[in-house]
């Protein structure tokens, strides 16, 4: 009986102990810079990129995962599986891809893949341990896509860090993003140029309680 009790105690302890690594998702609308940020993180810590980037929306159309990324700073450490997701949108029109220079067959295929990508991104939300919501700081943060993503994370009590990306651009307005989501940590960065990326990592430690 003693052996069984010990086994049970150990089993329950392992079940509820703090996870060594977490699933960290990058979520947001299309073209906000999720994959650019993903590439910045993976280049910084494991020396390789994660995905392709493009000015054409919905470049990422499948869930991309990079496992066992360990970040360290000032005695703190965080290990995570980075999950880069397709941008979430309420509409996808293949004609937009035609305007971007794709041929009709390519454009229709991209649109079909993009719709599947959005569906997958929504499904995977439940599995995340923490989420970085990447917003384009030159755009209106009050979109229903942003509100829906953050509302779902709040309902599931998933820790959230909001990144106001593209601060290198003139129209960037971090204050607007902060005002839209005052209950969350908002970090302004340029994922493309690595501006304030250390602030991002420090806030990530804070949000994930490391």
């Amino acid at each position, binding site marked *: 009986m003693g052996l069984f009790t010990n086994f049970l105690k150990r089993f329950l302890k392992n079940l509820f102990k703090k996870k060594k690594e977490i699933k960290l998702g990058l979520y947001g609308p299309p073209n906000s810079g999720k994959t650019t940020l993903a590439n910045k993180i993976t280049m910084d810590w494991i020396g390789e990129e994660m995905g392709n980037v493009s000015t054409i929306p919905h470049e990422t159309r499948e869930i991309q995962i990079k496992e066992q990324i360990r970040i360290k700073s000032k005695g703190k450490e965080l290990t995570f599986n980075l999950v880069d997701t397709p941008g*979430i*949108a*309420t*509409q*996808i*029109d*293949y004609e937009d891809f035609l305007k971007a220079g794709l041929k009709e067959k390519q454009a*229709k295929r991209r*649109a079909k893949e993009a*719709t*599947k990508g*959005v*569906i997958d991104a*929504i*499904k995977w*939300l439940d599995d995340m341990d923490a989420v970085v919501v990447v917003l384009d700081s030159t755009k209106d943060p*009050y979109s*229903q*896509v942003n*509100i*829906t*993503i953050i*509302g*779902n994370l*709040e*309902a599931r009590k998933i820790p959230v860090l909001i990144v106001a990306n593209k601060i290198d651009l003139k129209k960037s307005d971090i204050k607007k993003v902060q005002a839209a989501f005052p209950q969350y940590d908002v970090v302004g960065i340029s994922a493309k140029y690595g501006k304030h990326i250390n602030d991002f990592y420090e806030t990530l430690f804070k949000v994930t309680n490391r």
Partner: protein
Amino acid sequence: MLTLQFIPHSEIRDLSSEKKIHKLLRVVKEEKIVLLEGKLSSSEKSELIRKTMEEIDDRFKGIEIEELDIDKKDKAFLDKIRTILINFILGSRKGLTIIGPATIIKEIKKDPDKIQLFTEETRKKKKR
């Protein structure tokens, strides 16, 4: 022709989330703009987006969705709704959700003082 369909809260109150979404999307796919009394929960909105993605084809490109908070004191807004929907009263329930086909609604802009709903028809009239 632009068609607006007002759906009162009472019509969807007793529906499951799945049936609610199905009903809303069915109306939108008929190329109508839905004015839904009340708001959808975050999980209902993500379900609406998910279902919308499943329905997208060459004809249906998705939706535009916007939420509006109505102040009972905002008579200008209430007057506007009455003008659009002709003689109804929203009652004491706050909030309105607008869902429309993406191809018809080019922009929905939210303004606390007045609502401007831009549609292709409005723009065509302005060009004339």
